[in-house]
């Protein structure tokens, strides 16, 4: 007699000895000739070369250690998933076109031209198999920020019309409608009203002057609308003068993820303009990882000068409000583990904020093994979660995360990123897994001390 506990899907057919990458479509956008695509890719690779990227691209030792940090490689042993290999075309273009010895590389033909076949193959490597989580950047003995280079390499791919179709769809929709999920300002207003009613909370909308501009992620608005109420409860409890704006509510930035700097700038400028318009002193970003990277660290560079307001991730805001006593929370009798969104923690520098919040909640906090800055990524960042064909790979990679979470034996799994939450939910479903990803912000909102408000 055997019993199958049903927690994980039983699959007797799966290949065990070797990982076979899924069949790859080579998606193409537009109707450019191959030659033109190559030129576009090259030109937009080249635009990114500056002192910093040049030193990175010149400094690689080919030691291969980044492979040991990358979840895609660790789970598949496919050497192509070595992070530095993913930017091989970008690197090759640098050496051939702009590097200090470019003249000789061209003269002697030492680095061959990038071909259309190369670019097609690298579509899979630069998008499907990289979440830009930046774990590889921490292992590199030369200190090369490989993840940063991936983001730049995507610029060339986008302009050449060679990115995964689903991601392109989402990014295009975001550019056209202002939201990757097609959430128009009207729809946003509807949802906010609905949440205000449902949760009996006052939610200011389109206030002319406010100190705080709160923004949301479309994923939250669509899939986790309770986040809207939670955000409102917390900001109300803190007594902030704040508002949502219909002319600047979308925090996600699929221009950045897909590799189109123009769209990236548009999305960012909407938020900046809205904040400036209402004279905000601060934008509070929602539970979204890449939004933090896009506005907190890249926003001012899109704007071209320092921002006239501060940018906080909601976890940073909550940590600050709790630390200064602006809000108070009740003790929560649970054991909790926390999944760090890569762009907020590892790459954003706000690792401590979530831990401060968790401390105030008084839970039994169980840090994952190598949690915090060395956390395994959810597998869905960097736009990967939108790419349907990458699902098998993403699920495979998620196994690392599951092991990490299960080891803590915590009651609750929390994070502070709707994108992570989305890919956790998807993988949970796929594996029939026990853990449901919860929101740190929602836990705070649910446990606010009433008398304080």
């Amino acid at each position: 007699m055997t019993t199958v506990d049903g927690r994980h899907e039983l699959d007797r057919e799966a290949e065990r000895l070797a990982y076979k990458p899924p069949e790859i479509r080579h998606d193409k956008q537009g109707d450019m000739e191959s030659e033109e695509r190559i030129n576009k890719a090259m030109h937009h690779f080249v635009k990114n070369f500056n002192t910093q990227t040049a030193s990175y691209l010149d400094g690689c030792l080919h030691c291969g250690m980044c492979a040991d940090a990358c979840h895609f490689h660790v789970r598949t042993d496919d050497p192509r998933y070595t992070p530095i290999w993913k930017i091989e075309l970008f690197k090759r273009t640098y050496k051939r076109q702009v590097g200090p010895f470019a003249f000789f590389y061209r003269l002697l033909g030492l680095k061959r031209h990038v071909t259309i076949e190369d670019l097609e193959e690298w579509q899979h490597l630069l998008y499907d198999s990289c979440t830009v989580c930046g774990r590889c950047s921490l292992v590199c003995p030369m200190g090369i920020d490989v993840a940063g280079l991936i983001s730049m390499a995507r610029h060339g791919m986008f302009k050449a019309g060679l990115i995964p179709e689903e991601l392109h769809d989402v990014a295009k929709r975001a550019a056209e409608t202002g939201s990757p999920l097609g959430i128009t300002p009207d729809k946003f207003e509807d949802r906010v009203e609905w949440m205000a009613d449902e949760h009996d909370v006052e939610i200011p909308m389109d206030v002319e002057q406010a100190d705080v501009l709160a923004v949301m992620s479309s994923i939250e608005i669509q899939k986790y609308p309770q986040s809207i109420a939670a955000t409102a409860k917390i900001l109300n409890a803190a007594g902030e003068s704040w508002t949502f704006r219909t002319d600047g509510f979308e925090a996600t930035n699929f221009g950045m993820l897909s590799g189109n700097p123009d769209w990236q700038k548009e999305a960012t400028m909407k938020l900046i303009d809205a904040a400036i318009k209402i004279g905000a002193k601060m934008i509070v970003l929602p539970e979204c990882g890449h939004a933090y990277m896009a506005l907190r660290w890249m926003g001012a560079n899109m704007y071209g000068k320092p921002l006239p307001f501060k940018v906080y991730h909601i976890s940073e805001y909550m940590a600050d409000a709790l630390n200064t006593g602006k809000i108070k929370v009740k003790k929560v009798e649970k054991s909790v583990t926390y999944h760090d969104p890569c762009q907020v923690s590892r790459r954003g520098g706000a690792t401590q904020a979530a831990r401060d919040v968790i401390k105030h909640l008084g839970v039994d906090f169980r840090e994952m093994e190598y949690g915090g800055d060395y956390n395994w990524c959810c597998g869905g960042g960097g736009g990967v979660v939108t790419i349907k064909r990458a699902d098998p790979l993403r699920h495979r990679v998620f196994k690392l995360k599951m092991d990490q979470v299960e080891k803590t034996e915590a009651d609750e799994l929390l994070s502070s990123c709707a994108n992570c939450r989305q890919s956790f939910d998807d993988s949970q479903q796929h594996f029939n897994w026990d853990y449901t990803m919860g929101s740190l912000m929602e836990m705070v909102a649910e446990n606010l001390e009433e008398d304080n408000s």
Partner: protein
Amino acid sequence: MDLLDFARGPALQWAAYILVAGTIWRIVGITLLKEKPDYSEPRKSAGYPAALKVIWTRAFTAEPFAKATLYPKMMAYVMHIGLFAVIFLFTPHIVFFEGWTGLDWPGLPNSVIFFLGVATVVSAVALLVRRLTNPVLKLISNFDDYFSWFVSTLPVVTGLLIPVRVGLRYEDLLAVHILSVALLLIWLPFGKLGHTFLVFVTRGTTGMVFERRGAKT
């Protein structure tokens, strides 16, 4: 002019000129590319102290990666420490540097140097074998990797052969050794051996960028 005179004279001279010119060429060629200003509000003050910090800390593997990278890291340590000792703590080399810079420092006994030299070659061979067999390294390696291995291991091997003699005369072996060093110096600025100076640039850059974010470096 015999081989030794050629090696010690013109060969070494030209190697030195090429080393100096090539190194500066590469550094200037990189630093004069456009700079990307960062307008984001720093979380922490960073700047050069952060650069120095990471130049130091990246010499060590972070604990989460320690197990996976243990073998190549250990071999690389042996090779680098071995190279350092063999180059800078062998008395004839110290005399060489003294003749050039006027600085003098104590050396190690030859038996220790010989042992370290052998350890260096062993680790270099181990790393080469790894490069030839590990699927990741096989994929990402190019001519530069193999040639750089060759030119950096060769001087150690030729140096070790001097006391062993192997049928050749001392001055011929010495000449071959110096010529191999000249080859190393000539190649150093152009290939990946440029990490001898680029390591300060790359680690330093990352230190400054990520420290100002307050992120993990």
